[in-house]
């Protein structure tokens, strides 16, 4: 338990591999933190009544990593007791019920990591250049738009 082991880590990953909540929670665990808060975004099987058979994510990878890093910086400014932050986003085809994104944040006390997780996922949806295409049973497909994104149809209202 040297100081070094426990110094704050920003762990950012974009990957085509399946995500694991155990890997994320372990990566942010630290001996001085009593709280780990996590958010897992999973792919849903329906959209407005249409059956979704597949989801596919693509990213502007280096810029997505930069924007995730900016989120980490903002979290540390707002919640200085936050210790470790892990943000993983899956790319490519994500089957229904599997995780597309996992956020894990540790802090000595729970209020900070709970609030920071919410900020993290809200901000990720607004600022990180990643796109999702839903493919429906009808073989139609649609590029989704987060309402949190300021230049989306919903975001402009």
């Amino acid at each position, binding site marked *: 338990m040297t100081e070094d082991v426990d110094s704050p880590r920003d762990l950012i990953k974009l990957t085509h591999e399946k995500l694991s909540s155990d890997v994320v929670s372990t990566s942010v665990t630290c001996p001085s933190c009593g709280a780990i808060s996590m958010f897992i*975004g999973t792919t849903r099987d329906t959209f407005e009544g249409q059956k979704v058979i597949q989801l596919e*994510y*693509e*990213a*502007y990878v*280096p*810029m*997505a990593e*930069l924007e995730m890093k900016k989120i980490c910086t903002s979290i540390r400014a707002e919640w200085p007791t936050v210790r470790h932050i892990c943000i993983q*986003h899956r790319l490519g085809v994500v089957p229904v019920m599997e995780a*597309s*994104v996992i956020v894990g944040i540790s802090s000595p006390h729970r209020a900070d990591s709970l609030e920071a997780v919410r900020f993290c*996922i809200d901000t*990720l*949806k*607004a*600022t*990180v*250049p*990643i*796109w*999702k*295409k839903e493919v429906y049973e009808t073989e139609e497909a649609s*590029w*989704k*738009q*987060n309402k*949190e*994104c300021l*230049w*989306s*149809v919903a*975001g*402009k209202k």
Partner: protein
Amino acid sequence: MISEVSVLYFAKGAELTGLKSETVKLPSELTTLQLWQELEGRHPKLSVIREQVVLAVRQEYVALGDQSVSLRDGDEVAVIPPLSGG
């Protein structure tokens, strides 16, 4: 002055242009709206996302407007349709 930049397309933008990326010669000084117009001129189908798009220049977001940008050879420009990560 003309700069040779890489332009990246994603999601709907890639579908509309049929391209993931291309190398384009562009004026070195222009507004972000002019930059968009240059790209839309090359790919008229991009007009369908004109109202819901921003650009990224050297991996920083810029809205379409009067703000001027300087482009150097090798710079990266990206067309950014509405985000849907998470």
